[in-house]
């Protein structure tokens, strides 16, 4: 008989973050007593970026005794004072430094997909934590599109399992592709989500509750979710998982220094051009340029900032930037087609109550030749707050009096969204623009255009959720075309001609420079990327612990 699995009663093996947090306040414990390193001290590891990728890497290796400095461009949060239960007031959580967006289908940045500050963009992600599917690692072999990864699902699976305990992930047993269970029980769902489920049943679409990185029950000193609906504005409750509560407390307890307000501008290399010596950065408070020496350097700045930093690190043997000998840095950046459709119901639904991430479906995740395009999409509840809802109404062409009328109807609406797997394309890329930021560093430009397969996928997916809302009894539907998430930009592969890093996320041609974020993913599936980014860092940490550079 299979061993039984006691939901809600198990925790991770090597991460004490949940016990280190304080029940009564939300500050990161250990900030005041945090270990500090001198710039000229060669630390074992310098990480750029204290988000999903950088934090997990630091936490894992700190437990192995590595001396680590994490440089973070944004602030060190004090959530009780800094975060608010308010949409417009949460502006500081986003990366709002200017980026130029171009191409036929430009991608809006900022609050949509970019975080700044200790904890990264997981501070304001919704909370969905699905795994990638095994097929995501071999889309070229299976479907003739995208690229195969140099690693398989099986290599990430133990890390998925461990991270699901660390976040912890709550949800129903997961039936799709590689069935698995979650360590915490599914959350109760709102009346609105129940309406959607009813419509889905009529169309034979399967849904499941979760998977969300939101505590259900108590987990160490992290409290139960209070269903207030402000997941995208930073969780003031400590119920939603982000590295700020899941990995950084343990990292600090093991000697990691998180140096906030420090913008990395260059990775420096030695005369051989093959070894990184550390990171040049600007300290925001003083405007002073500093340099942190390190034995190993890991960049975890995500799909825009990681390529930008590599492209800006020119000189000597690297006239076009680090890892860019074959013009691969910044290419194959992906986003997911994330159309949302809202339906109007005769009764009040009040979608602002309960977390936006409630139920989801991966029934359409895999390629179905009958649909006429490769790969697929997932469906999730999204529940925008008033400003988000206003943007939704505007997208349908309403403003002025008509917009006010739709807005007054807010409580009768419920919104669901899709995540369509858009394919990696070489010309969807990050480059450096002419304009410079206040550190003197060229700002990033991101060009994005869809291919035919992308357009067919998005049109089909929108049809499915529109039918679903109609089946649920919606009297009117409004849709918005949009994009979500970032992935790729420095993909891993088997040769420098078509990738930036090898299967261990080491930059080709460099002895000790690693990328530890979502930029290394060659494909993106239809899953939200947070869990996979963490799992990749967890895997990288194990590799580095066994093979010190």
């Amino acid at each position: 008989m299979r061993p039984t699995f006691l939901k809600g009663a198990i925790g991770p093996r090597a991460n004490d973050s949940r016990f280190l947090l304080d029940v009564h306040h939300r500050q990161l414990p250990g900030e005041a007593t945090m270990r500090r390193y001198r710039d000229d001290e060669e630390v074992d590891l310098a990480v750029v970026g204290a988000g999903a990728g950088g934090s997990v890497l630091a936490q894992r290796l700190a437990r192995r005794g590595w001396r680590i400095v994490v440089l973070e461009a944004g602030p060190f949060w004090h959530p009780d004072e800094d975060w608010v239960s308010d949409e417009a007031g949460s502006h500081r959580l986003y990366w709002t430094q200017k980026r130029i967006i171009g191409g036929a289908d430009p991608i809006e940045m900022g609050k949509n997909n970019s975080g700044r500050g200790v904890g990264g963009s997981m501070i304001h992600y919704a909370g969905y934590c699905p795994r990638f599917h095994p097929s995501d690692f071999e889309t070229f072999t299976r479907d003739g599109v995208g690229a195969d990864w140099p690693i398989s699902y099986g290599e990430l699976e133990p890390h998925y399992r461990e991270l699901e305990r660390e976040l912890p992930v709550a949800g129903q047993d997961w039936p799709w592709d590689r069935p698995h269970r979650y360590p915490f029980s599914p959350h109760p769902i709102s009346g609105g989500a129940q309406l959607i489920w009813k419509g889905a049943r009529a169309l034979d679409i399967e849904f499941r509750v979760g998977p969300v990185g939101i505590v259900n029950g108590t987990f160490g000193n992290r409290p139960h979710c209070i269903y207030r609906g402000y997941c995208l504005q930073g969780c003031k409750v400590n119920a939603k998982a982000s590295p700020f509560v899941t990995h950084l407390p343990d990292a600090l307890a093991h000697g990691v220094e998180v140096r906030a307000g420090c913008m990395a501008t260059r990775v420096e290399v030695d005369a051989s051009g093959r070894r990184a010596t550390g990171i040049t950065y600007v300290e925001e408070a003083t405007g002073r340029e500093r340099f942190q020496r390190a034995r190993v350097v890991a960049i975890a700045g995500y799909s825009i900032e990681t390529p930008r930093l590599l492209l800006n690190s020119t000189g000597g043997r690297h006239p076009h930037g680090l890892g860019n000998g074959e013009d691969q840095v910044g290419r194959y950046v992906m986003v997911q087609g994330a159309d949302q459709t809202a339906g109007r119901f005769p009764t009040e639904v009040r979608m602002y109550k309960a977390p936006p991430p409630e139920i989801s479906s991966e029934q359409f995740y895999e390629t179905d030749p009958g649909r006429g395009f490769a790969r697929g999409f997932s469906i999730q509840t999204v529940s925008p707050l008033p400003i988000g809802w206003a943007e939704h109404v505007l997208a349908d062409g309403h403003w002025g009096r008509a917009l006010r009328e739709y807005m007054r109807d807010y409580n009768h609406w419920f919104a669901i969204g899709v995540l369509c797997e858009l394919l990696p394309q070489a010309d969807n890329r990050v480059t450096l623009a002419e304009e410079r930021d206040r550190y003197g560093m060229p700002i990033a430009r991101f060009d994005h255009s869809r291919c035919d397969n992308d357009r067919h996928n998005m049109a089909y997916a929108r049809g499915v959720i529109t039918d679903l809302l109609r089946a649920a009894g919606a009297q009117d539907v409004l849709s918005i075309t949009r994009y979500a998430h970032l992935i790729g930009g420095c993909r891993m592969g088997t040769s420098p001609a078509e990738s930036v890093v090898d299967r261990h996320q080491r930059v080709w041609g460099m002895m000790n420079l690693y990328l530890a974020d979502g930029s290394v993913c060659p494909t993106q599936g239809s899953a939200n990327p947070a869990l996979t980014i963490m799992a990749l860092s967890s895997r990288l940490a194990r590799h580095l612990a066994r093979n010190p550079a």
Partner: protein
Amino acid sequence: MPDFASARHLPNLREGKEPPDKRWLPRQRRGITPQMVGRYPDYDVLEQIDAWDPATRRVIEERMRAGGRRLTFFTTAEERTLRAFCDVAVAQDEEPRVPVAELVDEKLAAGRLDGYQYAGMPDDRDTWRLVLRGLDEAAGERFGAASFADLGLTEQEAIVVELSRGNLTGGTWQTLDAGRAWSVCMRMILSAFYSHPWAWNEIGFGGPAYPRGFMRMGPVGTLEPYERAGATHEDPARMAPRLEP
């Protein structure tokens, strides 16, 4: 009598997509809504202010003090057009008004931008100035007026509808993509308008919810003790069932 179960008031389901006159809705009886219309005449989110955490409360109280503040980003010459444009964009045709122009001005003055700029577009701050100039030009060209602000509501709406469809051309609009500029301005206007508690009253939004949270998530139509269901313009005293002696 308004029937909120029906969706007949929604513009997409009406002839010419024309919304009903706002007078189909009740006047606000409790608290304030923009123009004192709303769907929840007996609901005032500000009555819950004691349940908000101090950081949130500070931010929202500060926002509510923006009304009447002197503009610092826009010039006096730009101010009239700015106010007229903000009014039309969210249909604020009478007092009380959410101070949209002040909130937009404050954001631009502080450089709190959204983190992206379309290729070929100027900085958002320059876009705003160009849009105001372009609106005045369109007012002159189409209606012979000196300023967009001098036009009547119908004329103003006729210009804004063209802006929203990206159809304005000539003059300033030769160098500025009208459709993109519309999106830049509306992002900021909508964010200002729907960040204000008066607008939350109008739409019956529960507002900040920490540390209290929500406990009653379903079935649909279930209310927290302080939430109010949508109501009509009828006098509640007359609507109540007559008490038997």
